[in-house]
């Protein structure tokens, strides 16, 4: 069952034997029914399929909710956006994930290897070295400061402030570029004069703030 958006800052997930839910720690606001919570680590699919080891520096330990009932999720009054995936892949920073159906497959892109460009992207988005890919059929609840809006990408490139980038779905290429004068556009202490250029076919989600959270 897809997540219900209770209001702009809270979602409700229905947990059942067939549909456990994974969330970030500290996101559970309350629940009814008989729901059991336990900590999990790593990536994979389903609660049992989660790999037990934690990557050094991984910033995202999760919590599994299993049983029968409904759970309310929210985090620090941040806005929550629900994205329902129908087979496509959502890419976003791991610490923006509030909760998702455990049936979705998650994997982490480690940017330790890869070129200078990728390493810089990780640093600029404040994530450190990890982005998460979520794939399959199910709901994902994502955190954004002030809410997020969707920009369809259709051939024309879209420029995005790296701090305002929430995530994207579809077949998109997200490249980090430096540009003269860009510091004025995204400046204010970020130090970098970088922008993200998004090309391809899909949707990019941007938050209404240039501060991460």
């Amino acid at each position, binding site marked *: 069952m897809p997540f219900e958006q209770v209001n702009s800052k809270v979602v409700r997930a229905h947990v059942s034997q067939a549909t456990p839910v994974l969330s970030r720690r500290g996101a559970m606001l309350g629940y009814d029914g008989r729901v059991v919570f336990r900590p999990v680590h790593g990536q994979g699919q389903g609660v049992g399929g989660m790999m037990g080891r934690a990557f050094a520096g991984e910033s995202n330990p999760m919590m599994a909710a299993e049983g029968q009932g409904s759970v*309310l999720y929210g985090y620090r*009054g941040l806005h929550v956006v629900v994205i329902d995936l129908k087979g496509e892949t959502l890419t976003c920073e791991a610490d923006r994930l509030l909760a998702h159906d455990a049936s979705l497959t998650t994997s982490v892109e480690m940017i330790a290897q890869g070129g200078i460009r990728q390493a810089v992207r990780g640093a600029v988005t404040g994530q450190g070295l990890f982005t998460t890919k979520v794939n399959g059929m199910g709901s994902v609840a994502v955190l954004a400061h002030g809410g997020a809006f969707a920009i369809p990408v259709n051939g024309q490139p879209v420029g995005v402030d790296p701090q305002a980038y929430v995530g994207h779905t579809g077949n998109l290429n997200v490249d980090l570029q430096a540009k003269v004068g860009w510091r004025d556009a995204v400046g204010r202490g970020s130090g970098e004069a970088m922008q993200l250029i998004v090309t391809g076919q899909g949707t990019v989600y941007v938050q209404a703030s240039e501060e991460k959270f």
Partner: protein
Amino acid sequence: MMEQTYNPMTLPSNDNVNAYSFSVDLNGQWFITKGAMIAYYGNITFQAVTAFASAQAWVAAKFSSPVYIHDWVVAEGQGKLILGDRGFDINSYTLEDGNLTIKANNLLAFDSNLELKQSIVPGFVTLIGSGIFLASSNGPVIFVEPPFRADPEALLGWADVPSPSVHHDAEWMTRSIMASVQGAFGRASGEEKQYDFTGQGTILLQSSEAVRRDNALMRLVESQTDLLAPHQAGQLGQRLVARAQQANQ
């Protein structure tokens, strides 16, 4: 585009102006928190409750909560008074010979017909009687009915339900000990303890917030440490400092 302009006639009478502000049709006295006043039309004076307390015994009777008294002001007069709280959602609640317990830090204002008492649950106050009060919340308030377990940070209040008990998720604790999760004996993430509600009534929730500075709560908890022996107090102090340092990482 710009919405309509308001004046004293068109401002709502005891209703929200928008989700984040409320217009009180003042004709007498209201208790408001310091800082709640955004603007007003008319003739209104504001005085700290402490200034009143000795002169008017009835104010002292309404305010049988010494811990919170310092944060309150009496607004008196006639006019339209617009109240708000840091851009949080504001909701009004009308009690008819009822009672509602609310997180003290979220209580914004109440008309002088209501009585305020400190709740047994730390950090909460109970309003009793008939009248209107205003509470702020981080995002719109969510109402649920018991049976329900609420995260302590998300709990905003409750009405007509018996006071909650504390539920420790025993399974979580056991598994976390087995998995050697860091902080198993402390408050690791929040899922290990909830307030448990049973019975009939309504529970109010909000998206959990970064802990807002609640000076009154700090005074309350500090006064409770009087129960500790000096060396225990020192040990507690060290643990609190360590917690503050960990939170800053």
